[in-house]
């Protein structure tokens, strides 16, 4: 087991290096830089600052310097925030993680139930309806759903707060604070879940349809098990195991989706910071964050892979 884990981890290294090279190359191409956007400094000062930030290095030196930092856990220096990139990520990422986590739980739960229901009733009216609805929520751009949601739920009918994470000036403590945050989470979570749930529902439906056709389901029924037991114990477990590998790829999707919703709902997450960083050309913050997500994805995949091996007895590691 340990050797498997180690081997799998070692395999990620070339991918990580590849990702980092691609990223640095792309970022190097980006026109504009933070220093030049300050109109009040002299050309000499601008050159001095660029030198200080390492913006003038040729790309391979830039890469080596940066890679060296990354190897020691230093993702670079955010010029805009005047802080290490890791500090900035740490400051904002948890808010994003909160949303992403809740969305992950909701969307998987909903997708599993709806997908199963839809598969069990394949070709029924409900299946058609669900198929349509799922495609409907998948078929609007995220920002559009977000703006519509704000319009209907926060502006026209003041059911949810317009945006942000806490009620300013309320100074809630304890449970009141938690409820306050939950209230503010409603809209972004609903929107992100709606966006995320569609594809997953389709996945689970297809996967369940495959499983339900298997012989062992017939065996289970022939044992006199309740249909619920057949579906949720026998079928779902088989459908879920391959889905574990999907989890790894959920990460970049969730964070990317969150970028838009954070911007719209004014949620203080890392996504909106990243968008700002792009516009301000905060070189290392852009690079650091993108690499961070890529890293999470790769690690997420490894973990998903290992989990899969744990969960599926057929490939279980001994």
């Amino acid at each position, binding site marked *: 087991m340990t050797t498997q884990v180690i081997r799998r981890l070692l395999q990620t290294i070339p991918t990580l290096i590849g990702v980092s090279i691609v990223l640095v190359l792309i970022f190097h191409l980006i026109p504009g830089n933070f220093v030049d956007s300050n109109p009040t400094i002299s050309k000499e000062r601008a050159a001095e600052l660029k030198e200080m930030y390492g913006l003038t290095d040729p790309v391979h030196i830039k890469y080596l310097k940066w890679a060296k930092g990354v190897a020691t856990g230093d993702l670079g220096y955010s010029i805009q925030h005047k802080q290490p990139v890791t500090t900035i990520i740490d400051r904002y990422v948890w808010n994003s993680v909160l949303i992403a986590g809740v969305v992950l739980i909701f969307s998987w739960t909903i997708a599993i139930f709806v997908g199963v229901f839809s598969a069990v009733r394949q070709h029924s009216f409900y299946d058609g309806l669900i198929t349509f609805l799922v495609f409907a929520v998948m078929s609007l751009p995220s920002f559009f759903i977000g703006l519509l949601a704000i319009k209907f739920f926060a502006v026209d009918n003041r059911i949810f707060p317009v945006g942000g994470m806490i009620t300013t000036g309320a100074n809630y403590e304890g449970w009141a604070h938690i409820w306050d945050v939950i209230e503010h989470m409603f809209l972004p979570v609903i929107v992100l879940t709606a966006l995320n749930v569609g594809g997953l529902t389709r996945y689970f439906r297809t996967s369940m349809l495959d499983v339900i056709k*298997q*012989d*062992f389901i*017939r*065996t*289970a*029924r*022939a*044992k*006199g*098990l*309740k249909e619920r037991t057949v579906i949720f*114990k*026998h079928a779902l*477990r*088989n459908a879920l*195991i391959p889905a574990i590998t999907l989890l790894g790829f959920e990460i970049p999707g969730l964070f990317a989706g969150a970028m838009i919703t954070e911007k719209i709902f004014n949620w203080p997450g890392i996504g909106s910071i990243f968008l700002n960083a792009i516009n301000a050309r905060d070189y290392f913050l852009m690079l650091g964050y993108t690499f961070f997500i890529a890293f999470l994805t790769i690690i997420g995949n490894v973990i998903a892979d290992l989990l899969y091996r744990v*969960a*599926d*007895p*057929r490939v*279980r590691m001994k």
Partner: protein
Amino acid sequence: MANNLIEFRNLRTNFYTSSGVVKAVNDVSFSIREGETLCVVGESGCGKSVTAMSLMRLVSPPGKTEGGQILYKGQDLLTLKERDMRHIRGNEIAMIFQEPMTSLNPVLTIGDQITEPLLIHKGMTRKDAKKRAIELIELVGIPRAAKIFDSYPHELSGGMRQRIMIAIALSCDPKLLIADEPTTALDVTIQAQILDLMRNIKSEFNTAIMMITHDLGVVAEMADHVVVMYAGKVIEEAPVHELFANPKHPYTQGLMRAKPIINQRQDRLYTIPGQVPNPVELGNNCYFNERCEHCMSLCVEKPPILTTYENKHKAACWLYEKGGEVS
């Protein structure tokens, strides 16, 4: 003479496919007596498995059991509430299937799968169920039962898996065991072992067995009574010796001839000419007429009726029908 355990009366199960309605089980009647082994014989698609699934009430869409009765202990299973039917499945009537490789859930342990019926039907505690499960595993002839209990299906061979299937089926001491081609997918040596096992079970527990097969060798070895099906209909039914000695229906005769006989060298095995008719386009006639050597004009005009002859022998063929000759 033992009592009827199961009685099929005019069972009809249809499948509504995109190309039309398939009468998979078309007015089938026969019965299984307590402690008896009944073999249902026929080619692929003749409706023998669907008959069994109809009995279990596990025919799924687009199939639908639409007529007739299946009497079990005087009750019509077809009208039973789903809840009551569940209590019969796996408990009083158990079933094993053709593909042992895929009939066990790959992500649950053998133990989980054997104890499941014990827990739900017998209300056993987990501990008792485990004890019983290990007994069952030993009963079906697998050594190191305790270890097998915790294994997963993929760790076992096909023969062992089929034994496990049998153990599951036997777990609640069913009155009837339906075995749908239980040996088809297995090696010949394993086949013999499984058949032995089933024979032992039958003698030990006095369980009735409804065995579905296309292999007349298996029939000869196992059956007390045989039902021959063709295109959804029962065309012949007789005690096993009677049938082998005196097959009436040309189809049955064909089957007999198609079976290789040991120590008898043949240049070519006999094959029944033609193909199984398209199930959607069945007319109002004898479905075998196109392939029959003895086809008469009547055969294409009217369907023959299953008629009882001597020695509890039933057949549906105009050849033996006086009425047929008359009209």
